[in-house]
């Protein structure tokens, strides 16, 4: 782990090398600072400090992940669970069985649920960010209120909505008062839309937060310029302000989609397991297959398919994410 090939330099670094940094071209004169790779250094790397966190991550993350791949290729059920090393190896049979069972439908439900939820939350988030951009009395309270659904834990949101959406719950009672027939929100095809509605309710503040961060970057002069041009609010908003939000909101959409696909708590607590067919999202089918049908090998195969599903937005996210320090480290 500790690759100390460069510690041939002095143990603590002389004053000159420390001030000059790693770049050979950087003279150590204050005030004449050369652009250099600030923040990252090659000298006397104390890589042993990585050991505690790194080893722990290998043991609790990497090994289980590799094991998951192995499990997906063995026939593991409740009888072989405790002796999984002896379970029969069956290659890709779990995967073929998964695709012949309910998996394709679950993929479709998961993807459509995630995409619809993401798309639906964007207008709410952007509208909220734009509406709280200008100062007014009580804005702080409004902003705090906007965060309520986000701060509440998912299991709390799911539990209270489950209670409110009961056939004799408050939602149907209020709907009846204004003359609308309530629905069986938690069963049948309606459950799919219930899931999306509750997810929208819980998830839009995330878009709002990211849009808010984007609005901070709008230059004040932009407003003045468009005011001089006599731009009305709508063209100004659409052509001047919203373009600033494209990047942050797209990023937010990517992350939100990832979170929607992986969301287990909401469907699980809202509908219970096994869930109605229409909300049998990927995490639910994996959970039910392993912990209710006790087909661990089969469900590991399903889980790996769901990882591949997540990998698409994840790679897109990793591409746009600034991993290294060069851009940020140089900023003052």
């Amino acid at each position: 782990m500790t690759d100390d090939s460069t510690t041939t330099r002095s143990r603590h670094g002389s004053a000159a090398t420390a001030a000059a940094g790693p770049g050979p071209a950087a003279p150590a004169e204050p005030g004449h600072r050369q652009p250099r790779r600030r923040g990252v250094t090659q000298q006397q790397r104390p890589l042993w400090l990585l050991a505690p966190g790194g080893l722990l991550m290998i043991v609790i993350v990497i090994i289980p992940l590799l094991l998951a791949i192995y499990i997906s290729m063995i026939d593991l059920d409740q009888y072989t669970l405790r002796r999984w090393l002896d379970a029969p190896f069956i290659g890709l049979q779990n995967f073929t069985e998964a695709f012949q069972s309910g998996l394709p439908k679950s993929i479709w439900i998961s993807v459509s649920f995630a995409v619809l939820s993401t798309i639906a939350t964007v207008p709410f988030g952007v509208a909220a960010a734009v509406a709280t951009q200008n100062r007014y009395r009580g804005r702080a309270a409004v902003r705090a209120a906007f965060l309520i659904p986000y701060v509440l834990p998912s299991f709390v949101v799911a539990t209270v909505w489950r209670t409110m959406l009961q056939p004799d719950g408050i939602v149907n009672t209020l709907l009846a008062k204004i003359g609308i027939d309530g629905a069986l929100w938690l069963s049948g095809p309606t459950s799919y839309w219930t899931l999306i509605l509750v997810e929208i309710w819980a998830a839009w503040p995330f878009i709002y937060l990211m849009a808010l961060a984007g609005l901070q970057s709008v230059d004040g002069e932009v407003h003045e310029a468009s005011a001089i041009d006599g731009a009305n609010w709508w063209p100004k908003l659409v052509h001047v302000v919203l373009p600033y939000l494209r990047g942050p909101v797209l990023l937010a959409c990517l992350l939100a989609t990832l979170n929607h696909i992986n969301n287990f708590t909401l469907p699980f607590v809202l509908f219970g397991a096994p869930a109605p067919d229409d909300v049998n999202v990927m995490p639910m089918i994996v959970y039910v297959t392993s912990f209710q049908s006790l087909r661990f090998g089969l469900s590991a195969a399903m889980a790996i398919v769901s990882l591949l599903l997540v990998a698409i937005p994840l790679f897109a996210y990793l591409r746009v994410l600034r991993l290294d320090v060069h851009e940020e480290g140089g900023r003052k």
Partner: protein
Amino acid sequence: MSTTASAPRAEVRSRRTRTAAGEAHRLLPRPLLVIITVALLAMILIPTSYIVLASLNTDIGVAEGQFWPSTFSVDSYTKIWTTANLATGLLNSMVVCALVAVASAVLGTVTAYVLVRYTFFGRLTILRGLVGLQSIPGTLMLLPVFVLYSSAGNYLGVAVVGTRWGLFVAYLTFALPFSTWVMVTYLRGLPRELEEAGRVDGASTLKILFRIIVPLSGPAIVVSGIFAFLLGWNDVLFASVLTRPETQTAAVALSIFGATQEGGALPVYSQVMAAALVTAAPVVLLYMIFQRYLVGGLTAGGVK
């Protein structure tokens, strides 16, 4: 994190330009602003105020479909401690999540420091991994952990499923990468010059880390710990599989309590609402105390 640090400055600047530019900054006409704000507030506040009102109602009142309680009472808040497994749940959640928070904040800080300050083979892969791990489906992680735990009895002679320690380790699989990433985003904004002074004085890396870096990163370390805490507190998946009734977390206790009310003679929905608010309280409290740090960290880390 770095966005939070620069926020006050941006605020001051924009206030100055606003007085100069006046109405030019207004993004929306006033009526539209009012409509949007009222609509969004209604969407949030009608359900949330119902939760609060129902928790202050009686079980009979809630069952009758009252929005506004005919009689206010705090009975539900006293009854839940006997009807639900809530006290055990809260205690277990507190213990496990606090341990997770401390462990991932400490290990995350040390690991992040090396990742930010030094280059080495595989560094970018690790950084990518830290982000990627946050998006791995929980079910994919739970399966092998469960298999390892349940076979531990056979192969090693120790029972792990159902213990708090087992849950603690399971939560670390998500909390540790996340805390590390939060610290990476913070530490890379920290100017190097601060450490160089120490290095000139000949301080060792450990000394620099604990005398210079840690005191400067106090809020960020706290935030990374809180996020780790919240990951555990908000989890249902791992806890529903890896716990027994004695080691149940608050999340599982509440979900079970809520689910078992349906179809009974008199569902105690008022108590469900009270229990929901009690289990949410620590989270809400944490957000209220650390609001500006947490919100900044959210946009940096990108995961709830």
